[in-house]
């Protein structure tokens, strides 16, 4: 057993050699401490008074601010050799040119948890800092509007602090009184002055329109306050948090195994693809090597869900710009696809089917017939939809040139996935950093050039074809062998291992009742999810539950960019822009 509890050796999976890290550290100055984590990403602890200077210096090398959040360190036991901190704020930076990552960490004491805001360096830091403020109470000095972003304006406390209750049933029961209703409604009133907006210009009075949180075209509970000059959008303020389900806090009270169903519901159109970064991160920390069959099954199911998600995008996108019928065709095909998902996993939208160390079951007999039927049937349908929807003149006129951004802006705002590739940036994690066995597959990365609504649609349609190609390769080359790893931490363990003697029985009992114990370590894994780059950054304190689960979702960054790309367009164009981003609110608010 003892070899299992050793954290696996860190390896430079992200292309940064120890020499480069050392050079970087020398360049930044002597008071910077290096920390190694299981994912191989170098972590540099920077004193907060030097943060702005260091970050400004790093921006040219690492232009993409991938993630920013915090950790409440106050009750963490295993922090050997790390700087003293009550709260840690971390910044995950990515260099696309060198394909490498860097994490910057800042230690903060409890009584004085404030540090300079990075909004002047990265505009994308705005929402991330607001979230860290909302969740941890960290104060970012110089932030233009440091308001709560996920919890209601009248919320008390900071939910991800360890002293904040996790369960609703630990708190006073919710009661809807007239006073509460009035106070909440009043707090939702949009005040332009708070956002630095004027109520009128020289020759016009602006109208402020409230779109959402319940509106047929905003794809979920999402609100945008619009500043309008006639029907032209002058500015927009997205307001999120109506779909905040506390998924990160949930990770701190579910065992490593029982948290898997919660990941399904983060990007609820992505199904089992959400399980993938989570179980891969846990496996990396536990040192589990997944057998080939499990890898290929995972890839096949993930690509099925990519198709399901893109089909829903395609249908609703066409509907939002005025085509009524495509959505009916695409939902019918989703049902065909779900019949396969159901036959294999037993579930539809949320199968929660990946496991730590493998998948839930082996493939049923006859799965290949169903999958072959589908991959034979679907390409002609995609061609048909392409002709029916994307080649349609009205759809083109409504979307070409609308909501455009270039690849520099995409990087600046942390736009990933199809939205990034629509600008011509050839970056697909499945190609650039093949994970979970994608290096064995032959497929292309669809690109477009203009980065407008139309291109985002075209890229996704082509991705459906490529996913079908990957699924066909899975079908023709499905390896034989076990679907679960031979490893004590595999959850639940293979049944054959359990009934041997008292030792294996106890092992099984503990593994099922407490769940696996993951050695103290930190690890993040990112994947190319349906909507962009999704990463789970897990911190284990050597227990049966995660100490901190950070979920970086693509849609959060994408929504932040809406004002930038919708200024100057009409309201109807804004609807096309919103549809072309392809988000679900659970993927934004978690």
């Amino acid at each position: 057993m003892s070899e299992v509890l050793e954290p696996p050796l860190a390896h430079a999976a992200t292309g940064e050699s120890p020499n480069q890290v050392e050079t970087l550290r020398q360049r930044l100055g002597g008071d910077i401490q290096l920390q190694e984590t299981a994912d191989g990403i170098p972590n540099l602890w920077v004193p907060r008074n030097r943060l702005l200077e260091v970050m400004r210096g790093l921006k040219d090398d690492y232009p993409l601010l991938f993630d920013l959040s915090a950790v409440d360190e106050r009750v963490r036991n295993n922090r050997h050799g790390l700087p003293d901190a009550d709260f840690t704020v971390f910044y995950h930076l990515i260099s696309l040119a060198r394909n490498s990552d860097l994490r910057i960490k800042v230690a903060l004491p409890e009584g004085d948890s404030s540090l300079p805001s990075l909004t002047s360096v990265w505009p994308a830091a705005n929402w991330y800092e607001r979230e860290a403020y909302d969740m941890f109470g960290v104060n970012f000095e110089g932030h233009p509007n440091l308001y709560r972003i996920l919890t209601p304006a009248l919320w008390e406390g900071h939910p991800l602090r360890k002293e904040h209750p996790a369960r609703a049933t630990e708190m006073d029961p919710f009661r809807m009184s007239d006073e509460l209703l009035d106070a909440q409604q009043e707090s939702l009133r949009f005040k332009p002055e708070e956002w630095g907006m004027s109520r009128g210009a020289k020759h016009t009075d602006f109208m402020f329109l409230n779109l959402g949180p319940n509106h047929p075209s905003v794809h979920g509970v999402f609100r945008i306050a619009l500043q309008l000059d006639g029907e032209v959008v002058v500015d927009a303020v997205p307001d999120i948090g109506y779909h905040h389900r506390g998924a990160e806090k949930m990770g701190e009270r579910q065992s490593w195994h029982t948290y898997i169903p919660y990941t399904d519901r983060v990007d609820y159109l992505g199904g089992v693809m959400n399980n993938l970064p989570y179980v891969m991160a846990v496996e990396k920390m536990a040192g589990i090597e997944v057998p080939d069959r499990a890898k290929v099954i995972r890839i096949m199911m993930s690509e099925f869900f990519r198709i399901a998600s893109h089909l829903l995008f395609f249908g609703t996108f066409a509907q939002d710009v005025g085509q009524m019928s495509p959505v009916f065709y695409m939902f019918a095909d989703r049902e065909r696809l779900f019949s396969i998902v159901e036959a294999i996993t037993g579930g539809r939208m949320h199968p929660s089917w990946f496991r730590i160390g493998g998948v839930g079951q082996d493939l049923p007999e006859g799965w290949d017939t169903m999958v072959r039927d589908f991959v034979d049937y679907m390409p002609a349908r995609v061609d048909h939809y392409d002709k029916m929807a994307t080649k349609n003149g009205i759809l083109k006129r409504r979307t070409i040139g609308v909501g455009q951004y270039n690849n520099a802006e995409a990087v600046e705002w942390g736009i990933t996935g199809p939205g990034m590739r629509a600008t011509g940036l050839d970056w697909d994690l499945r190609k650039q950093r093949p994970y979970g066995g994608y290096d064995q597959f032959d497929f292309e990365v669809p690109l477009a050039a203009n980065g407008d609504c139309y291109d985002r649609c075209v890229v996704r349609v082509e991705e459906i074809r490529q996913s079908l190609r990957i699924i066909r390769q899975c079908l023709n080359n499905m390896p034989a062998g076990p679907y679960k790893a031979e490893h004590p931490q595999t959850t639940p363990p293979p049944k054959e291992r359990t009934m041997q003697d008292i030792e294996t029985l106890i092992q099984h009992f503990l593994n099922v009742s407490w769940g696996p114990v993951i050695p103290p370590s930190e690890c993040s894994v990112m994947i190319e999810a349906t909507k962009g780059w999704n990463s789970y950054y897990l911190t284990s304190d050597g227990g049966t539950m995660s100490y901190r689960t950070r979920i970086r979702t693509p849609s959060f960054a994408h929504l932040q960019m809406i004002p930038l790309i919708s200024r100057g367009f009409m309201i109807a164009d804004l609807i096309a822009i919103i549809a072309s981003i392809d988000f679900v609110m659970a993927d934004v608010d978690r």
Partner: protein
Amino acid sequence: MQWRLVKAEADAPMASADEVYQEQVAKGFLTAKLDDLVAWGRAHSLWPFNFGLSCCYVEMATALTSRHDMSRFGAEVIRATPRQADLIVIAGTVFRKMAPVVQHLYDQLLEPKWVISMGSCANSGGMFDIYSVVQGVDKFLPVDVYVPGCPPRPEALMQGLTLLQEAVKARPRPYSWIVGEDGEVSKYQPSQRDARTPVRMRVTELEEPGNVGDAPLSKDLLRQKSPSPATPGRDGTGRRR
């Protein structure tokens, strides 16, 4: 309505005047209690509000599209504004930040109005016993039908809808606000589980376990390919290329 087939025979006796009179009376009149008549009409003209909160809404949308086609049950006129709707399906998690908005929308629905709580989150909070989630929409709204599932299958929502229709028929609501005793007189509601378990357990055909390729689902869905609109050689106008 009564009708009969008669052969065209010239010497057959004609219906008597009294018979004709009785027939016309039967055609032209319907006797019923007004309450029942209105309730029957209401049950089959529910106008749902286009409202969704999270994952469940995707399954609700699936129930509305081709495969399941909820309009077969007479509830497909989805309205974009609550002021034109009388049914709200709480499809998804009720968030604390969203609860006042849900209440506001409910208040704007037309009377009489009905609520279907769809999915575990709306029923009880479900797996999300977490600070930001109201533990069930019935903490502040009166719920008529609970549909279990996470998310419920489209078929489950349709069953919930038909249950609601039965309830609307059986339990008429006041036409408007009334002075004095308000609300409906609810009979004992039998548990659906108790009522249906005997039927559900009466399995007549068992599929061979572990073999999905020959399951009827697969055959229906994939083998019998419907004639694709994109038949090769023809474009949208039907002309040969």
